[in-house]
């Protein structure tokens, strides 16, 4: 399957935005080669600010730029953006209600060899908890590009989680991202699997295999984690009666939690969350780590099968 870089998609989109709108400003914290903001920096040196290894100051400066009508995009690795600068994002960006876009690379454990210190497995939770903050996790490079164009038009603070590794392409050029809307990428009746980021691809793989076993799985790419698409979650619960969530993030506080929050208050059905248990990441190759942390298609298949056993039989027929 063809893979593409989310980071390069981001870099290209920024460059195009920079050409269209002179209010686009880009900041980075000494990782512009890695996050690909360097592409923007090269063409628009006056609108690019390398802040050095100083994430807190980067966020505050971005807030000041936004307070003066600019549209700042601030980038670094996910753990430093959301962890080191969390309180700056809270006070100077979210509390202020300022139009700052935080676009991080290196979300999740697929950071790989650098190890647990560099693997952001809490970032979705950290950003989702902040009032007014939108949280988006693109599933492939095509969606990343769309997300960047969309959030440049949207007024308000946004966190976008990208990745170090290339993701298999899910979409073609016809795809149209909508903030706050999940997208159904495969229809099914027995179970719904709601995934985000790289796990969307793994979920599609799992769904094909489940079909061979006679299980029809509805697959949803929930790229906007906040505001979450409640209607689609509830509709899916009504149709399939059981939901698996899958994310490259802790099972605490991320997509799985967000889905459970909706279901428990509105339409409770059996749920299984796939993600990283209550522990930190470790060094290793991305593929090895995905297997080690049980984030592979086979893990989703197993979870789906087990969950179907828990599903009250009568619910299966409701459609």
């Amino acid at each position: 399957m063809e893979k593409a870089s989310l980071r390069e998609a981001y870099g290209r989109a920024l460059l195009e935005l920079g050409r269209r709108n002179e209010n686009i400003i880009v900041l980075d914290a000494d990782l512009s080669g890695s996050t690909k903001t360097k592409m923007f920096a090269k063409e628009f040196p006056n609108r690019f600010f390398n802040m050095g290894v100083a994430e807190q100051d980067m966020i505050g400066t971005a807030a000041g730029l936004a307070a003066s009508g600019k549209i700042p995009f601030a980038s670094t690795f996910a753990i430093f953006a959301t962890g080191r600068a969390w309180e700056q994002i809270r006070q100077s960006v979210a509390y202020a209600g300022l139009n700052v876009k935080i676009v991080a690379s290196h979300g999740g454990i697929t950071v790989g060899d650098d190890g647990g210190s560099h693997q952001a497995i809490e970032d979705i939770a950290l950003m989702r908890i902040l009032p007014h903050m939108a949280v988006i996790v693109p599933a492939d490079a095509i969606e990343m590009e769309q997300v960047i164009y969309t959030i440049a038009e949207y007024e308000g603070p946004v966190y976008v989680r990208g990745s170090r590794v290339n993701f298999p392409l899910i979409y073609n050029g016809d795809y149209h991202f909508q903030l706050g809307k999940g997208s159904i990428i495969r229809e099914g009746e027995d179970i719904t699997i709601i995934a985000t980021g790289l796990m969307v691809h793994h979920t599609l793989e799992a769904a094909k295999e489940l079909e061979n076993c006679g299980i029809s799985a509805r697959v949803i790419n929930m790229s906007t984690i906040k505001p979450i698409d409640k209607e689609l979650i509830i509709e899916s619960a009504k149709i399939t009666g059981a939901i698996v969530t899958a994310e490259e993030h802790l099972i605490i506080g991320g997509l799985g939690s967000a889905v459970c929050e909706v279901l428990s208050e509105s339409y409770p059905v059996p749920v299984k969350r796939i993600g990283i248990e209550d522990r930190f990441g470790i060094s290793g190759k991305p593929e090895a780590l995905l297997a080690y942390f049980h984030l592979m298609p086979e893990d989703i298949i197993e979870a789906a099968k087990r969950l179907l056993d828990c599903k009250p039989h009568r619910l299966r027929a409701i459609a």
Partner: protein
Amino acid sequence: MEEADIERLKAIAKDIRKDILIMLNKATSGHTGGSLSVVEILVALFFSKMRHDPSNVHYRERDRFVLSKGHAAPALYAVLSRCGYFDRKELFELRKLGSHLQGHPDSKFTPGVEVPTGSLGQGLSMANGIALALRLDKMPSRVYVLLGDGEVQEGQVWEAAMTAAHYKIDNLCAILDNNGLQIDGWVKDVMNIEPLGKKWEAFGWEVLEIDGHDFNQILDALDKAEKIKGRPTIIIAHTIKGKGVSFFENQVKYHGIAPNDIELEKALKELDSN
């Protein structure tokens, strides 16, 4: 500066101090000492130095002010109100539910407040961002940011100090309210920040040191700062915490305590007699 103008500013400062004390007394909580120490600095900025227009709050050419030491909000509110940003009656709703005057400055509620502050150490970064945006837009406006002395213990302040020098942000002027006290005691005892002037110089800033209660010195320094090109300027203003009320001066206890009714009466009497 004409003597008459200085006298006018002094009279305003006295009224501002009285308003601060009444506000805090009515709120029954808030930061007395650090509000009183910045009165002359704020009065000099808003009643003499800065270009701003309370009837057109967001006009683009205005100078910007960021109160990085957000706990001095009562002083800022009293000044903004007297400038005409909002009715004086609102001052006495400080910190109450539904008030436009939050415990710490909040741009969502209060006209004249540019960005929210209160969590220390973040104002200089935001001021840098504002100044960079103004420079990109080729605006003549200047940015003023007021820091506390205890506040510079925050690491982010020094990140921002590097940024301002690195990007030669000379449309920005920081003022440091060096009153020597923080919540737990004397700054030098809690976590020494000296040599303060040398630190800022080493970070690439032009450093001016003044008596922060002397209008002539404040206004001279603000004028000088405007002429310094190619690097940012910081005015280290030596001040007295609780300034203007003898029994609040240099008293660590009044960092975060509001005057009670008896203290208020005594304080107002003392201010009137001077």
